[in-house]
């Protein structure tokens, strides 16, 4: 089975974000990056499906040169080869542009299953997978917590809201967006890292972006919905003040 997994490189969760002078993006010159978490689960699921059914896993990403490092990491975790759609503008691009950039190489690759994470930690569109399915003419299912494959079809467990789930069957080839927590992640071994050095990352130029796009006109830090009382001092001082306030002002402690 040929499996493609689309992964994104995002600014680390711990990053202290500063809005840049143009107020249309963050200052990311000195940022550190990591694999988008739901995409890491999608990659892991692709590797597990390959272990059960055989075949190849190709990792795909759209973004600037630094994305090469992300793809190398995916290869070290066990992907067989990688495709890098390289373009500086792709890091900030909207979902339709990114999906459009990934569609061409995936169409050429002729895969049975495409996996993506359900959304990214940076722009958080939650769209690229579903758009990609539409561009490739594939059926899709989203927010998936289990994947069974047999006889040219997939049966997948969709997460609904409030603790509900649903199994959905769909013919292959198909696209699935993967929810975090579907599996337990593995990390690259030294052997994997060494092996990755010999694996291929094919670079592809992106197509012209679509005519219809969404554009960010301004960024700002959200206002507080509540008046937060920040308690300061040593841990002992803040603890004392917090307990006093919870007991006397908020009156939410259980009184014996």
């Amino acid at each position, binding site marked *: 089975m040929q499996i493609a997994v689309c992964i994104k490189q995002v600014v680390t*969760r711990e990053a202290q*974000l500063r809005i840049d002078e143009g107020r249309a993006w963050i200052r990311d010159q000195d940022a550190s990056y990591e694999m988008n978490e739901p995409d890491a689960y999608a990659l892991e699921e692709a590797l597990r499906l390959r272990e059960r059914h055989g075949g190849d896993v190709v990792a795909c990403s759209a973004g600037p040169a630094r994305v090469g490092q992300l793809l190398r990491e995916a290869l070290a975790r066990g992907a067989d080869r990688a495709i890098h759609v390289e373009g500086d503008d792709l890091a900030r691009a909207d*979902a339709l542009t990114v999906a459009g950039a990934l569609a061409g190489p995936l169409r050429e690759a002729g895969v049975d299953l495409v996996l993506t994470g359900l959304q990214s930690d940076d722009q958080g569109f939650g769209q690229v997978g579903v758009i990609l399915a539409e561009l490739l003419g594939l059926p899709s299912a989203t927010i998936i917590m289990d994947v069974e494959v047999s006889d040219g079809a997939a049966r997948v467990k969709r997460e609904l809201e409030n603790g509900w789930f649903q199994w959905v069957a769909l013919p292959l080839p198909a696209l699935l967006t993967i929810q975090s927590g579907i599996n337990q992640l593995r990390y690259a071994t030294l052997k994997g890292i060494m092996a990755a050095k010999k694996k291929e990352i094919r670079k592809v130029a992106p197509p012209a972006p679509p005519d*219809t796009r969404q554009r960010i006109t301004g960024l700002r830090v*959200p206002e507080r919905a509540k008046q937060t*009382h920040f*308690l300061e001092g040593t841990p002992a001082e803040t603890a*004392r003040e917090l*307990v006093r306030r919870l007991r006397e002002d908020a009156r*939410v402690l259980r009184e014996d």
Partner: protein
Amino acid sequence: MILVVAEQRDGALNKASIEAVVGAQQLGDAVKAVLFGGDLEPAAKELALSGVEAVLTVSDAALADYTADGHVIALEQVIAAESPELVLLPHTYQTRDFAPALATRLARPIVTDCVGLRREGTTVTFTRPMFQGKVLADVVVEAGPPWLATVQAGAFKAEALEKRSSPAPIVPVKVEIADGAIRQRPEAPFREARQAVDLTRADRIVAVGRGIKGEEHLEIARGLASALDAELAASRPICDNGWLPMDRQIGSSGQTVAPRLYVALGISGAIQHVVGMKGAKVIVAVNKDPEAPIFEISDYGIVGDLFDVVPAIIKELSA
């Protein structure tokens, strides 16, 4: 005209659909709503009283059970017939499953997870969170109508609905769905094994997030829960890692709670978590990152290392 795509299950309209109607009303334009499924009468009657101009009902055997393909095919036809300027949907798991494909079929982008909408000249500016809610972005669509957008749960208040005295007409609409056009075959929705813990009844909750760093550190959170006579809960990543069972999860994929006291330890406050706990009466957050979005909804905030702060709180409580 703004077309709101409402969502119903077993005849019940969800709150997010009403919130989307409120968002549409606040843009100050005529609003119609559309419903898909099998028996739509109960939900349509409720929607008809919500202040919309008309309720379009698309009742078709092929749409009785939700599928992504069914929704895309049906909505494409409704949009072609109605020519709305804006199509507004609630940002639910169901919408996320089909709306981006619908937009692509219409050769349009879709602006997802909006928390604000405002008219500026001949266009609409959409406000949506980015970077896990740390930043808000104003976004415009560089294309003519129909624009498409989804609105985040709670961004508009259902109580702000401007109802009308007389019900709006309910207009049945026919769509063509070719045999074999729907590729997904859904089975009946189900719940996992009964929830062992009902957090919705808890008076006090101590919840842990990524900041707890390792399973072995959960003891410190347990200690605080015990000192506060609180239930222990967690954000999704903790349950994903298997450090706590799934029935301790708070948020859009877990339980929704409104205790008197909610103590968030090392929880950044991503919207998926916040929707499950923002109804708490008093919220305390302990986080190393002074810009963590959890502080935006907290009554008391402590910027610091939970491994220093929590033992001090436990000590103070037992003093």
